[in-house]
C-alpha cells in the first residue's frame, strides 16, 4: 500500500482507523454517567489532538531523527496562523488557500531561522532557537502590532476586503469553509445514552494529519531519513564520508517548520482567530515534552504524546473539588476530606503537576517514551503466553517440546524488540 513496507502500512492503517473512528473511541462513556466528563470526543478537543499531532510529528522529524533540539518551533505555529488569518482577511475564507499560504510562509521563516541557528549545534543551537522564540513573541505581542493585532490578536471581520469571495449578505458573518463546506458544521448521532459528534472541521484536519503521517513514514524509511539519523549518530564520520550535513539539517528544520505552519494554519481554519500566546516560548517547550513523552524518533510516539498532553490539559484540568467529593462520597467524612486534599493539587489547575510527574517517570524508567512502554507490555505478554504454554506441556511430560516452544517464544519476544 502506497509503496510502504508491511509494518509501516499496518501502522498507517491503524492511524487512519483511529482518525476515522475518533468520535467513537474518544466517547466511550454514556452521556449521563459520572464518567462522561472523561469523554474527549467533542470537536474542539478532537481538532486540537490533530493540530498538535501534526505539530509533534513534524517536530519529531527534526528532533527525533537529527537530534537537534529546537526550543523555537512554536514560532512557525504562530507564523502559519498569522499567514492564514491574513489570507482569510484579504483573499478568501476558503481554508485551502489559507493552509497552503501558511505552509509556504512558515517554510520561509524556518529557512531563515534554521539557516542562522544551524550554524551551531547542541546546546548552542537550542539556545539560539529559544532566543528566536522569545524575539518572535515580542514582535507579535508589541512591535508588529499592525500586522499581528498585538495582544488581542486577529480575526476575520465582516468589513475585510476578501477580494476572492463574493460579498457577504447583510448580517452574515465570514465562515471558514472548504469550497462552501462549513468547518463548524456538526452532526450529533445519538445511540441510546451515547452521543457521538461528527464535525466537518475535524475530518478535514484528520485527512491532512493522515497525509502528514504518511509523509513522515516516507521520510523515516527513505535514504534522506537515514542521513538524518547519521547526523544524530556521528557528524564527523558523515563529513569524512563525503556528506555535508548542513543541507540535511536545514531541510529537516524547514520540513518540521512547515508541519508546524500547517498546524498553525489549521488552527486558524477551524477557530478563525489567532493571538500571540500561540508562539510563546512555553508552547515551543510543550512540543518537546510531547515528543519525548511519546517517544522521540518513533513514528507514532509524538502523536501519542500530543494526545496525552492535550487530553490532560482539557479533561484532567476539569476535575475540581466538587467532582472529587462526588467520587469519594462513600468514604468517612474525615477520610474523604483527607483524600481530596491529597489528590486535589494534582488535578484541576494542577494538571501540570501530574504531567510533570508522568514525564519524569517516563524519562527515568522508559526513556523510549510511551511507544517503548507499549512495546515492553506486548513483549511481556508474548513471553508470558509462551511460558504458560510451555508449562502445560511440561505437565504432560513432554520436556523437549516445551523447550522448543519456550525458545520460539523467546525468539519471538526478541524479534518484537528488534522490530519496533
Amino acid at each position, binding site marked *: 500500500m502506497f509503496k510502504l513496507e508491511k509494518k509501516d502500512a499496518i501502522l498507517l492503517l491503524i492511524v487512519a482507523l483511529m482518525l476515522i473512528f475518533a468520535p467513537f473511541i474518544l466517547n466511550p462513556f454514556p452521556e449521563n454517567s459520572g464518567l462522561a466528563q472523561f469523554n474527549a470526543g467533542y470537536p474542539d478537543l478532537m481538532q486540537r489532538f490533530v493540530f498538535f499531532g501534526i505539530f509533534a510529528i513534524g517536530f519529531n522529524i527534526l528532533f527525533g531523527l537529527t537530534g537537534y533540539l529546537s526550543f523555537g518551533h512554536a514560532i512557525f505555529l504562530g507564523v502559519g496562523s498569522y499567514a492564514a488569518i491574513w489570507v482569510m482577511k484579504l483573499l478568501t475564507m476558503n481554508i485551502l488557500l489559507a493552509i497552503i499560504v501558511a505552509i509556504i510562509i512558515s517554510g520561509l521563516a524556518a529557512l531563515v531561522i534554521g539557516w542562522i541557528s544551524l550554524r551551531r549545534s547542541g546546546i548552542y543551537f537550542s539556545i539560539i532557537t529559544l532566543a528566536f522564540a522569545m524575539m518572535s513573541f515580542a514582535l507579535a505581542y508589541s512591535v508588529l502590532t499592525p500586522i499581528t493585532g498585538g495582544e488581542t490578536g486577529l480575526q476575520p471581520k465582516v468589513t475585510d476586503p476578501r477580494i476572492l469571495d463574493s460579498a457577504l449578505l447583510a448580517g452574515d458573518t465570514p465562515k471558514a469553509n472548504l469550497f462552501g463546506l462549513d468547518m463548524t458544521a456538526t452532526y450529533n448521532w445519538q445511540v441510546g445514552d451515547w452521543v457521538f459528534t461528527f464535525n466537518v472541521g475535524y475530518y478535514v484536519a484528520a485527512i491532512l494529519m493522515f497525509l502528514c503521517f504518511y509523509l513522515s513514514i516516507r521520510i523515516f524509511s527513505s535514504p534522506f531519513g537515514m542521513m538524518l539519523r547519521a547526523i544524530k549518530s556521528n557528524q564527523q564520520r558523515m563529513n*569524512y564520508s*563525503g556528506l555535508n550535513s548542513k543541507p540535511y539539517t536545514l531541510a529537516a528544520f524547514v520540513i518540521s517548520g512547515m508541519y508546524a505552519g500547517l498546524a498553525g494554519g489549521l488552527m486558524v481554519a477551524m477557530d478563525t482567530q489567532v493571538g500571540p500566546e500561540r508562539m510563546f516560548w512555553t508552547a515551543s517547550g510543550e512540543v518537546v515534552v510531547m515528543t519525548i513523552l511519546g517517544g522521540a524518533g518513533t513514528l507514532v510516539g509524538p502523536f501519542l504524546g500530543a494526545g496525552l498532553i492535550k487530553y490532560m490539559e482539557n479533561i484532567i484540568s476539569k476535575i475540581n473539588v466538587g467532582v472529587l467529593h462526588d467520587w469519594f462520597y462513600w468514604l468517612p467524612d474525615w477520610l474523604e476530606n483527607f483524600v481530596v486534599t491529597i489528590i486535589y493539587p494534582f488535578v484541576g489547575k494542577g494538571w501540570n503537576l501530574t504531567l510533570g510527574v508522568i514525564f519524569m517517570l517516563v524519562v527515568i524508567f522508559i526513556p523510549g517514551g510511551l511507544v517503548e512502554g507499549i512495546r515492553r507490555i506486548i513483549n511481556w505478554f508474548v513471553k508470558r503466553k509462551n511460558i504458560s504454554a510451555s508449562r502445560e506441556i511440561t505437565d504432560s511430560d513432554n520436556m523437549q517440546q516445551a523447550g522448543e516452544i519456550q525458545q520460539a517464544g523467546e525468539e519471538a519476544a526478541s524479534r518484537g524488540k528488534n522490530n519496533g
Partner: protein
Amino acid sequence: MAEAAKNIVLHIADVHKSFGGLHALADVDLAVEEGKTHAIIGPNGAGKSTLLNVIVGKLEPTRGKVVLDGELLTGKKPHEINQMGVARVFQTPEIFPELSVLDNVMISAFAKRDGAFKLNIMNSLESETDIQEKARKIIIDFGLDKQINEHSGALSRGHKRRLELAMCLIQEPRLLLLDEPTAGMSRHDTSTTIDLLKEIKSTGMTIVIIEHDMHVVFSVADKVSVLAGGRIIAEGSPEEIRASEKVKKAYLGEAQ
C-alpha cells in the same frame, strides 16, 4: 599500465603547518605512487596525525599544497575531499554506533552515489536494491555478515575497524588513508587486520598508512617515510629504513 604504475596519486608539496610558534610540519614533500602502500612512521609528536589532517582538509597548511591526481585539495572541505576520492580510517573507528552494520555501509554507499545533498524521500531503503546488494556483498567480504543487523556500536574493536574499512572501500576511493589501523588491538586482531590490508592492497588500492607497530609497517608497506620533529628525515624501502642509523636515533629521541 606499466606507465600508470608510476603515476603519482598524492603529492604533498612543501607543506608547513605551525600552531602559533610550534612548527608541527616543516618542508614536508611526499609523493605517493599509484597502487603502492606508503607508510609514514615516526615517534610520538612527530606530526603524523597533523599531516593526515592536512590531507583530508581538517587542517589547512600554513604553506604548501596537497594535490590528488593533479587536482588541488588544499582549501577544500573534508566532505569535498572525500568526494574527490580520499577515504579515511580513524585511529578510533568512526562509525555510526546507533545504526546497524548494514545502515552504516549503506550511508557510505549513498554518499558516494548521490554526492551532494539529495532530498530523495520517495524511495524507500528497501527499494534501493543496487545499494542494498552492494552493501551486503562488501559486508560478507569483510566477514561481518553475522552482525549485519546488529548495532555497530556493540561490535568489538576489530569488527568496528573492519566495518570502517568496508565503509571506506564501498566508495571505491582513489586513496585510502589509514590512521594507526591496529592501535589498541590484540595480537590476534592485529594479524587479521594485516591480512585484510594485504588483501586490500592486492586490489591495486593506493594507501597511506600511519602506524606505530613496525611489524605492521614492514608487512604491508612498499615505501616508508620517517617523520621526526615535523620533518621527513628518511625515506626508502622498508629494508632501507630498517637498516638506517638515523631512523634508530630518531626513535630513541636523539634526532636533531
